């Protein structure tokens, strides 16, 4: 009985729905389909953005909802742009971003190039290499603090073995000069496999016939690399840089676990600094202005980069 009912219901409903839909214009039908998505986009992305911009012009503090809200105009923006600590934070982020991208692209591409050559155990090595990116950043941060431990850390022992220094004579995460590199090393260790996989996809998309034609023309391996491999893999490389750049601009968990932003402020990246302002100091208005500045920066840079990427793809 129930089967009969359930099988009959859609049969009755379908012509009705079709009739109703059929009476809609194409434009109206398009709105029916994209309407829910636009609504969700407005609710989840656009409204919070507008609300954040509004808050950034006030002295609002989320921990003092009873307090009077005052409009402060652009004062929060002015304070941020003239705050030397925030500029230090920007510098720390730039250092982290640039060096992780450089190292991950170089090592990732080199690994992809090697893995792309057919050899015994190729699949096994690929699996081993991608293991770090399967781990949680919080876990990675935690266990690297042990690896960097001057008294028992494996990293210090390896460096000591290679250089002949005392392992406890240096602290990777406690020294102002070494800590910025300590976070670069860990992020590179964790995310180079991701870049490698994207590069590998790029390398495998290059048809063999192009190399065969180059062989016929007696092009050297070096020339093939620079005139075939690099140009054809470049869109993939640029995509990897875009993904890693956006990810590392908002890097938080790994660095918090490793250094907590210290020593001093040397590894306090903008995302950590922003979190402190918003949820530790509870300067919500100030933090909103900070977030807007970061958003505009990332959005602007990413837009320029995507345009460049499209141009490269069109070549």
């Amino acid at each position: 009985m129930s089967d009969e009912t359930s099988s009959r219901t859609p049969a009755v409903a379908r012509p009705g729905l079709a009739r109703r839909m059929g009476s809609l214009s194409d434009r109206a039908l398009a709105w029916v389909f994209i309407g829910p998505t636009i609504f969700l986009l407005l609710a989840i992305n656009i409204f919070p953005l507008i609300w954040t911009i509004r808050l950034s012009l006030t002295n609002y503090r989320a921990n003092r909802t009873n307090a009077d809200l005052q409009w402060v105009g652009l004062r929060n923006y002015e304070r941020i742009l003239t705050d030397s600590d925030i500029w230090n934070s920007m510098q720390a982020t730039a250092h982290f971003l640039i060096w992780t991208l450089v190292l991950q692209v170089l090592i990732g591409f080199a690994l992809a190039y090697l893995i792309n050559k057919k050899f015994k155990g190729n699949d096994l090595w690929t699996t081993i290499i991608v293991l770090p990116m399967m781990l949680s950043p919080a876990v990675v941060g935690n266990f690297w603090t042990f690896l960097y431990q001057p008294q028992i850390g494996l990293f210090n022992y390896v460096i000591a073995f290679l250089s002949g220094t005392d392992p406890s004579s240096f602290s990777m995460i406690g020294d102002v000069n070494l800590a910025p590199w300590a976070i670069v090393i860990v992020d590179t260790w964790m995310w180079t496999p991701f870049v490698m996989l994207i590069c590998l996809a790029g390398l495998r998309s290059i048809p063999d016939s192009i190399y065969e034609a180059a062989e016929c023309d007696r092009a050297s391996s070096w020339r093939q690399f620079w005139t075939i491999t690099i140009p054809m893999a470049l869109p993939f490389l640029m995509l990897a840089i875009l993904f890693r750049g956006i990810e590392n601009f908002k890097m938080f968990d790994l660095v918090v676990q490793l250094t907590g932003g210290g020593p001093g402020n040397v590894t306090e990246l903008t995302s950590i600094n922003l979190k402190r302002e918003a949820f530790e100091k509870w300067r919500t208005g100030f933090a909103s202005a900070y977030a807007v500045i970061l958003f505009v920066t990332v959005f602007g840079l990413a837009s320029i980069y995507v345009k460049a990427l499209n141009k490269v793809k069109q070549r």
Partner: protein
Amino acid sequence: MKSIGMVSVAAAALAAGFSGSAKAEDLTLCWAAWDPANALVELSKEFEAKSGHTMKFEFVPWPNFADRMLNELNSGGQLCDLMIGDSQWIGGSAENGHYVKLNDFFDAEGIKMDDFIDATVVGYSEWPKNTPNYWALPAFGDVVGWTYRKDWFERPELQAEFKEKYGRDLAAPKTFAELKDIAEFFQNREIDGKTVYGASIYTERGSEGITMGAMDVLYSFGFKYENPDKPYDMDGYVNSPGAVAGLEYYKALYDCCTPPGSSNGYMSEGIDAFKSGQVALQMNFAFTWPGFESDANVGGGKTGYFANPAGPDGDQFAQLGGQGISVVSYSSKQDAALEYIKWFAQPEVQAKWWEMGGFSCLKAVTLDPSFPASQPYAQTFLDSMAIVKDFWAEPSYATLLQDTQRRFHDYVVAGNGTAQEALDGLVSDWTETFEDDGKL
């Protein structure tokens, strides 16, 4: 203030009719995840049996405790009916209406604040400070003190060497100068075939660690938060010559005498360093002490305890820790929550609390003649609680704290600038915050 008034009226109404709630409730108590919390779970079983209420617990590890719980309070969340919140939260929680004011309830139930250690009442319950406005019952007394390896100190060869070098016995230090001598004496020393270090001190950057540690020293060197005659007047007090000397001392102690890799250590790192036999001296809150007595490596009489030593002018203060227990104003089970506080305040419950590892603040427990001998650390706890000072408890405490963390860590650990610059910068940061608050 409107909501605070309403909350007070609600508390008064509850207190007036309070004689044990008839309806069995599921009460949630929120606190940090640490050993005393486990003891409280055990202790609370008695309350469950007597009241018929069921107790649930929400414990958050210390590094995330403030973030998590202040988010909960600020959003008006109903997760917690009872909150054992940090002492510094009291100002914000009172002014923003997160806690129920307890004066009328205390009056109705005959709970007297005079029955609790004075410093804990000021530190955990009162807002504004030194006024009879109570927002919490002192629940867990805590203070920064020191532990030392008594078994190492008692070794004749070390005693002889120390006496020859410093001209006095190797014993628990009375001054910070003596403490540094001892730390230097042990730094990089071979003991039982293992290299050991002088002292473990607080250096943590993320939450409150280095502030708790450095302030613990600075107070005895002459640091004051403000002009006693003019509130929020900080120049010359926060950055006084004594305070500068205190911060320089803390950095010197960090540089000379801590184990390698101690750039981001707080309570748990201190416990690990001491229990593993790495350090001769350890700065830590008193709550850690019961754990040392039962430890296989450092228990059984191997650990000694001493209160914070005196500064160069003989001033002796210590950083207050600990918490009070409050009823969350957003709770729909406030009558049952108040019932819990009433039960918890009873002298026999407080005595049991101490036995189980909870640091009771009730004078009937701590001033009992048997108290000093009840545990090896009991006298040190009493001595320490008599000299406490606490960080700002203003509604803006989090901003004030984060500025302090940044200034202290930048100078002590990163080695940037001078102590004078760090403290001058702190005056500037704090002034800006109080200006934003309209207090300056």
